[in-house]
């Protein structure tokens, strides 16, 4: 286990953390700002990932898309597509209490997964898409990884900065007001439905971007990547642990959870074979338990909301 | 004569912060006691403390000589105290009649007279008996809440602002009902913002401010104290 190898692994982990940080930021817009319980993060992630892949991958005979466009176009398309999908979903379900939204978004993510699995013409079906280009992909392995790390965290910083700005503006204040008391916000002339939809779409677009960043890193995608456990649930724990309503908390949560999740595997891999298989499930158990502990002892997260509020006022 | 209810130096609150800083009250049998004081003084909190809905960190609450500090609400109801909270005091998704039934939840069987008694006190409710309590007007709800509390023939009745939102006619009636109920042997502790009227008809009163006792005495006495009138009764 040499240092260079460890460094390489750290870079790899850094990129994935960056991707999760994006997802977590997107979810924070929906849940932290607007109080929308989106349990279908994986769906928007998938839409972004596939769309960017289809825009940039080389064409293959039995699939309609594959346009070899520049990666930037793919990323933009990913955000737009995720936003576009979010619109009708939000339109239908945002009228109800969050639980309904949760159920509905789980369902949407499931349908998106089914469509991607089934419609070969569109998505390459269960075999997915390969040969997706990666920016700086032609550099030697280490350098290419490093460059991508920079790119990913560049995106995180840009999104973070933009969201912070938005949150400090009257827009953020209005969003929080709507979250706090919908009825009063409506009586104060705020168009509650439209505004919540706005937050939902914005969050979805960021999730779509995360999908796009992911897909170019992996250079391949199949429907299995839309695993609710690996995407939706992990992201939720990140946000709750880090502190919903706080963008820095969202990023911190992504860092902590991914490091724990990933390094716990390094541990379980070292266990003797008989229990190693078991340990994989115990790992999931531990993540579930961790969520419970956070909810029990620190429900507002490590970096709670509010520090921000004080500063702005 | 043993007091019905004694609160002795009760200190406590909702989270970690104290709202009540040593509140003491006594209610004697067949007595109407009223608590007045500014908004946020801790009047409602004091009532909730009796009913075990507030963390009590110090002091004691005795009902008919027995210490009930820290009891569960349902045990306290069973012991003979009824309580009408200030807000959210009806079952909005149940009918008026069902609300009254819930009042008598602990009784083995409910007699028709019990309902009749309430419907005679509040004829408005009889007409609305099958309406959902949630669709009633503010005042009608207040009546339902009172009616519910009276279903079980308690020995002590706690009322948190029973007249808020009621028309003057009903306000008078509620006070009259209180007197009638008192005359049947029930002690009553109530919080009122219609302080002048309340102090005028009660037996004794307490003035509470910022979570502690400020004044106490016979109703008329407090009413006639110009300082109290200036500070708490609106001049």
């Amino acid at each position: 286990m040499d240092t260079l190898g460890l460094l390489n692994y750290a870079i790899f982990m850094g990129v994935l953390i960056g991707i999760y940080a994006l997802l977590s930021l997107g979810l924070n817009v929906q849940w932290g700002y607007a109080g929308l319980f989106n349990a279908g993060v994986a769906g928007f992630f998938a839409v972004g990932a596939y769309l960017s892949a289809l825009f940039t991958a080389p064409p293959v005979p039995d699939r309609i898309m594959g346009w070899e466009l520049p990666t930037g176009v793919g990323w933009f398309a990913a955000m737009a597509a995720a936003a576009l999908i979010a619109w009708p979903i939000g339109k239908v379900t945002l009228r109800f209490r969050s639980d309904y939204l949760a159920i509905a978004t789980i369902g949407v993510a499931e349908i998106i997964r089914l469509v991607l699995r089934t419609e070969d013409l569109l998505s390459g079906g269960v075999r997915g898409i390969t040969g997706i280009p990666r920016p700086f992909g032609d550099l030697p392995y280490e350098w290419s990884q490093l460059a991508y790390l920079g790119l990913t965290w560049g995106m995180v910083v840009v999104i973070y900065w933009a969201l912070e700005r938005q949150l400090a503006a009257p827009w953020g204040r209005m969003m929080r007001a709507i979250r706090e008391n919908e009825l009063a916000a409506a009586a104060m002339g705020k168009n509650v439905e439209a505004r919540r939809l706005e937050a939902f779409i914005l969050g979805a677009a960021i999730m779509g971007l995360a999908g796009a960043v992911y897909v170019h890193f992996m250079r391949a995608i199949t429907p299995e990547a839309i695993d609710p456990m690996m995407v939706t649930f992990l992201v939720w724990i990140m946000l709750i642990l880090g502190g919903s309503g706080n963008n820095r908390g969202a990023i911190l949560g992504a860092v902590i959870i991914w490091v724990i999740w990933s390094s716990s595997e390094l541990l379980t891999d070292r266990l003797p074979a008989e229990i190693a298989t078991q340990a994989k499930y115990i790992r999931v158990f531990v993540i579930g338990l961790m969520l419970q502990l956070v909810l029990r002892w620190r429900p507002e997260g490590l970096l709670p909301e509010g520090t921000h509020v004080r500063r702005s006022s | 004569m043993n007091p019905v209810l004694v609160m002795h130096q009760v200190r406590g609150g909702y989270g970690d912060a104290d709202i009540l800083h040593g509140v003491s009250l006594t209610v004697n049998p067949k007595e109407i006691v009223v608590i007045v004081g500014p908004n946020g003084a801790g009047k409602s909190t004091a009532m909730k403390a009796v009913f075990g809905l507030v963390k009590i960190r110090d002091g004691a609450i005795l009902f008919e000589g027995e210490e009930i500090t820290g009891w569960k609400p349902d045990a306290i109801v069973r012991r003979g105290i009824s309580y009408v909270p200030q807000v959210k005091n009806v079952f909005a998704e149940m009918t008026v009649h069902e609300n009254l039934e819930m009042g008598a939840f602990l009784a083995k069987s409910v007699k028709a007279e019990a309902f009749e008694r309430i419907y005679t006190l509040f004829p408005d409710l009889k007409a609305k008996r099958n309406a959902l309590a949630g669709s009633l007007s503010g005042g009608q709800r207040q009546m339902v809440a009172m009616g519910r509390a009276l279903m079980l023939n308690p020995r002590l009745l706690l009322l948190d602002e029973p007249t808020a939102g009621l028309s003057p006619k009903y306000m008078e009636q509620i006070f009259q009902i209180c007197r009638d109920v008192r005359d049947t042997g029930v002690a009553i502790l109530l919080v009122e913002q219609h302080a002048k009227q309340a102090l005028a008809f009660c037996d004794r009163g307490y003035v509470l401010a910022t979570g502690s006792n400020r004044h106490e005495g016979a109703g008329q006495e407090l009413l006639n104290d110009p300082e109290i009138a200036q500070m708490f009764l609106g001049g």
Partner: protein
Amino acid sequence: MSGLELINFYVIPGLISGSIYALGAIGITLIFGILRYAHFAHGDMATLGAYVALGLVGSLALSPWVALPIAMAITALVAVVLDRVFYRHLETRPKILTVMASLGVALMLRSVVQVVWGVDPQVYSTGIVRAESYGGLMLRSRELITFATATGLVLFLMAFLRYTRWGKAMRAMSDNPELARLCGVNNEAVTRLTWVIAGALAAAAGFFLGINTELNTMMGWSALLAMFAAAILGGVGRVEGAVVGGLVIGLVEELSVLVLPSQYKMATAFVILILILLVRPQGIFKGKVL
């Protein structure tokens, strides 16, 4: 396609999975209606119940039908403990936190099942049971029992809620927990009872799912969406609604194969859910809209 074929291959299987969904949906609708949150661990509770029964069948060599009531009791107990340990302390916080906690519990339950029983599919009893023909209707005894037991459990539950004070206490608590307490309702007891019912019925759902197919560790989670759809379709908080909702979802899922590629079978429950939210959010039986 003849009418009989339609009944044998679409309607009967639809009704069977419908009654399984219904059993799960009752618990969901009660928890949604009374405790006021969507319980995402319900599917995995069903999985647990099914595996507990399997454990009994395997270790004590019981007949599955004897194992069923024991598994229901054990799962009910587990449900009560889960509530005590993971949900109770969130009572006074926004409900959505409890929803999230239930997602975590779902994961924990599933991994416990996976560690204890492994991930291979398993069955209660081996061999094949060919259907008997009742005047052209193809039925197996286990299907009849599934249907009869589900009906019996539902009728018993409805009678229990109607003719005892518990039913009223549940409604009161669902309406205004604080006030229910002040009426002398023991909220803890009501909550416990709710969990006992939900847990027991979830175990029954898991068991019937297992006995009509195989057991696998994802079985409950896969059925969860259908159960939620059933609960909302029937009207949140309405036991009879959950039953009707479950049957409708089960039927529509099977019949959907007539018009849709069967890969999309799983999506039909969701489509119904969206339609019902659009058209009649209070559900068939006018439940709550939270």
